[in-house]
């Protein structure tokens, strides 16, 4: 647990890999500032990167007219990261299980699985159009042990 005051920063970004990298770096800085250990910093920043890749690549499909927003908030008890896109929407129930034997050798489809593995809570919200992904890491809890 940290004594940090709640604060939220929101970025509106174009649909590019530069934006993905910016979001990842911001998540890393936020986690580091919150005082979590190196392994958790890696997990959080990777989960956020995967969410940003989903938004830019699968959601907005690199469309220069579409934007990704990324908000970062340390509530004092949680790190809350929200990533939105303006794409066609994502139904997590339709995603194939990447651990199923028939999917193990697929070249893609592991992003959402890794996000869920690394964060304490993951919420999907349909925006019509678009998707909002909320990633939450509880501060002061033990590492996920993943």
């Amino acid at each position: 647990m940290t004594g940090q005051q709640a604060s939220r920063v929101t970025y509106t970004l174009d649909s590019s890999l530069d934006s993905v990298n910016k979001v990842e770096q911001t998540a890393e800085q936020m986690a580091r500032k919150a005082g979590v250990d190196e392994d958790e910093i890696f997990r959080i920043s990777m989960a956020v990167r995967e969410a940003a890749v989903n938004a830019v690549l699968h959601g907005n499909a690199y469309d220069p007219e579409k934007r990704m927003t990324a908000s970062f908030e340390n509530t004092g008890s949680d790190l809350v990261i929200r990533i939105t896109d303006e794409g066609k929407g994502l139904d997590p129930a339709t995603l194939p299980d990447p651990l199923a034997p028939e999917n193990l050798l697929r070249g893609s489809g592991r992003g959402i699985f890794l996000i869920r593995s690394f964060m304490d809570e993951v919420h999907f919200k349909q925006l019509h159009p678009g998707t909002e992904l909320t990633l939450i890491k509880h501060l002061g809890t033990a590492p996920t042990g993943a």
Partner: protein
Amino acid sequence: MSMKISTRQVDGITIMDLGGRITLGEGSVQLRDSVRDLLAKGQKKILLNLGDVNYIDSSGIGELVSAYTTVRNQGGELKLLNLTRKVHDLLQITKLYTVFDVKDDEASAIASYAHA
């Protein structure tokens, strides 16, 4: 930030020494192209040395899987060497650790390939 790749030959095995990040838009395409180039030249025994890879995302993991299946489908062998703890953990989580043939010593890795 991007990935570095260098290749060398040891006893008929092509060792690709990778360093940096294997991620969407950075290392993934480089890795794919490098493996394709090796296969085009008939070099089908490939050892990916990941000792200096400090970051890999789901795209990079997918690229490792694709490289593995591409080489195998052409009758070759692709093995992994010197996983960092982060990459090791990611392969465990995704259940890929047992799919790949993972080595931690170059000499024994070289010796493990089928020699014609």
